[in-house]
């Protein structure tokens, strides 16, 4: 029984969790602009609607002008984020499609 519980916990813990990184790094956007990423969320493996909820929550915590980097491999999320940015009065700067998924950059405005 104890083994079962441990196994269950182990499997349950294998859930895909979102890791948030507040380390700053610079990114060159496709239009040549170099921006300072202030918040970064790695949502690889997470499916809808989690990445959207993370984006909402993080943009809520951010200051105007801050830049969020969202990493996701969920195509539906990628399609929704630009529309979500509009609703949240933020600017969708770029979406980069990479081998592992997408990196989306959003600037919070006012």
């Amino acid at each position, binding site marked *: 029984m104890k083994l079962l519980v441990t196994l269950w916990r182990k499997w349950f813990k294998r859930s895909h969790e979102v890791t948030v990184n507040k380390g700053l790094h610079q990114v060159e956007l496709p239009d040549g602009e170099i921006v300072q990423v202030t918040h970064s969320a790695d949502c690889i493996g997470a499916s809808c609607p989690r990445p959207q909820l993370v984006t909402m929550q993080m943009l809520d915590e951010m200051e105007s002008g801050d830049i969020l980097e969202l990493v996701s491999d969920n195509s539906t999320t990628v399609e929704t984020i630009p529309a979500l940015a*509009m609703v949240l009065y933020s600017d969708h700067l770029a979406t980069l499609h990479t081998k592992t998924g997408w990196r989306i950059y959003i600037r919070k405005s006012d």
Partner: protein
Amino acid sequence: MSKEPGVYVDLTVDEGPSGWFTQKENRYAAAIMALVALGSVWALLQDTRWVYLLVYVWFGLAYGMFLQYGRFCMASAVRDLFAVGVPRMAVGIMIAVCLYSLVAATVQVSGFNAFHPHPLGWHIIIGGLIFGFGIIFTGGCATGSLYKAGEGNLGSVLVIISISFSQAIFVVLGGWFDKFAPASWTTSALDKGMPEELSVTQGWFDLFTAGYVWDLKGSTLAAMLGVSNPIVASYLINSLLVTILPAIVIVVLLYAFYYRKGHVRREKIEQPVLKDHIRGIWSMVTSSKNTAIAGIGLGAFAGLHVWVTGILRDHYGIFNFGEMLADMGHKAGLSIQDTVFDPGYWYITTQEAQWGAWVMETMGMDMRDNIFFGLDNGVPNPLINAPGFMSIGIILGAAVLALLRREFKIKVPSMETVVFALVGGLLMGIGARVAMGCNIGAYFATVSNGDPSGWLFLLGMVAGGYVGVKLFNLWISWRVSRSDDFAL
């Protein structure tokens, strides 16, 4: 503040000097298409009548490609709206139903429409509620799970398996569950004089079908109003009144509740006038071009599908694929009326139920003592299940496009996703059977053919989705409260 939308840059495709075929994703995509083409030729060489089945396959491929192209997730239509306030998918669906209804009206006028209206009753709302609640947890509706499976999402494969078996079991379930059926259903079911072997008085779903649904009436609005002029009936009543006007009202409501505030603020409009709002609605409709294009494509192809099947039925002089199968000597999977499930248009859940039932029958269970399989739909071998091939076509079409766009990725679900997929799939299966279809069969195909019952389904689905989103958010905040870091 820039109003320009962000750029999308694809870093995955490096064409290189040696060309398109050197990249393995392109080779896989070409291999899938070649396999389907070769399989089609092989089937036609056996018997040209298989063209009837192949129509389902190729339309399935087209649906799969459009669904993947627009990331056309009907679950997110409800979920994104309530969870994050984004109307992208809801708008996409409205575009698709409008297009579908216009093509369907043309098909109706030309006399090749195979559509059957659904009986109108409370069951549609209740089924929609259960279904809408389920899709929030599975992260995709019945169709969405098919195209996501094509993108390599193994969690969606589990949803398909769960929905197949839950429907098959729900339909044959009897004994103790019969207590939930009112006595009036039993009396009414007995009156129908059904053949003994169906044992209609045993099994909840049989009682529900024969004792309740069969006593209900359903028709297109034009038929209800008794309009006989085909052009007025199809275009003005069934298409304009039943589909396009409600869709426009929904789009305007979506704008008013979810988009207007942001639009006015973004464009820095002080005193918005009607012109600004119309521009805002247009900006909402075009905010995701891929979704809008997919909506147009899906609507047009869904309409064409009805047409092509209608022409083929006319050509072969049949009403149902079962007659053709019987003629070809494949009688094993047919119902007692020699019919199989053959809607002639885009449909998802019933063929999945047949897959589940076929597996259970192969394991030795009796799946035919009921109306659903025994009288109507049969339990055909999946190899000759025509609508079943449409579902497989959707998976393959989505896989081809996902490979070409470098979006194919095998995703192993977490334990939480597995549980959600199985439980959500179970609810979706039950909801789809009670409402007699999913968001495709009971909503998309019905409203666009002038049958208002589909709006009832949508109402139920949206309400179920709303409750689902609230519960899902509670679950997430509970999980966050248990962990120290920001782990949604």
